């Protein structure tokens, strides 16, 4: 049985409350800050980052070099996109893909017994243990999922509001 909404009582507000919106913005800025910080650290020393990528023994050296130049800028641009909320969903999906690849590569290296420096946060992460890497990555993945879901919910609420308004 389909039920058609014809009118909405004026007392019902479908505008998402200001507090969760404010909280999501804080999460936005924290996640963006993490990626911008990580990107800048690697961007200033691409030689070290190329060696860090090469340590995973997955890619040929020229590709490691190309990624060492490219990935930090991608992280920085996506971080900025989260802050200014432009290309927001595109940035979220790229960052999610990046963090998943980093996590898989770190896990694969651990399984293969490689003693690696992940290089995710430049020298700051040089002495991180594997569990510390994994926990950090999982926390970032969780934050990205939360941002994605909150963005979808906000969009959906706004869509319903405009449908009711018209």
């Amino acid at each position, binding site marked *: 049985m389909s039920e058609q909404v014809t009118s909405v009582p004026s007392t019902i507000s479908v505008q998402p409350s200001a507090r969760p919106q404010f909280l999501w913005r804080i999460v936005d800025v924290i996640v963006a800050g993490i990626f911008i910080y990580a990107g800048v650290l690697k961007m200033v020393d691409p030689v070290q980052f190329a060696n860090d990528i090469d340590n995973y023994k997955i890619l040929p*050296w020229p590709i490691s070099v190309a990624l060492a*130049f490219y990935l*930090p800028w991608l992280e920085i*641009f996506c971080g900025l996109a989260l802050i200014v909320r432009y*290309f927001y969903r*595109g940035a979220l999906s790229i960052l999610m893909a990046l963090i998943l690849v980093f996590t898989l590569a770190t896990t694969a290296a651990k399984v293969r017994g490689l003693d690696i420096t992940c290089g995710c946060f430049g020298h700051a992460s040089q002495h991180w243990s594997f569990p510390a890497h994994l926990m950090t990555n999982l926390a970032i993945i969780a934050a990205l999922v939360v941002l994605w879901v909150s963005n979808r919910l906000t969009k959906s609420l706004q869509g319903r509001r405009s449908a009711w308004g018209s």
Partner: protein
Amino acid sequence: MKFSLTRQAIMLAVLALLPAAGEAIYFRDKISWRSPIPPSESVNADQARAWGQNAIWVDARPDEEFAQDHVPGALSLNEDRWNELLPEFLAAWSPGKKVIVYCSSLSCNASREVARRLRKEAQLPDVFVLEGGWEAWLKQK
């Protein structure tokens, strides 16, 4: 202006290419696209031969490969028996001598690691990695 998710991702990916290309040009002298070893820390087989008696050859391959064959006069120094072999190598080394480290081929990492440890832990200057390793030396033979 609204863009689909895919279009947003593509635009961000393309935007990041621009500064990355600029940075690659800026760092062109500091990193080699062919090999992880910086040009200042590597030596080709011709150059290495020309150094003659002014250089000590270090074989970073495993013991079995060293036992099969090696560069004449080379000393074995691999990471498996680093603590045992390092004193023997240091006894043979003298200031002013260049050190040429090699492993099996272009793709091996043992020579890089041994060279790095000789520079860092043994504080030796003039440590070079042979481009192409043992394979390149054999070709030049």
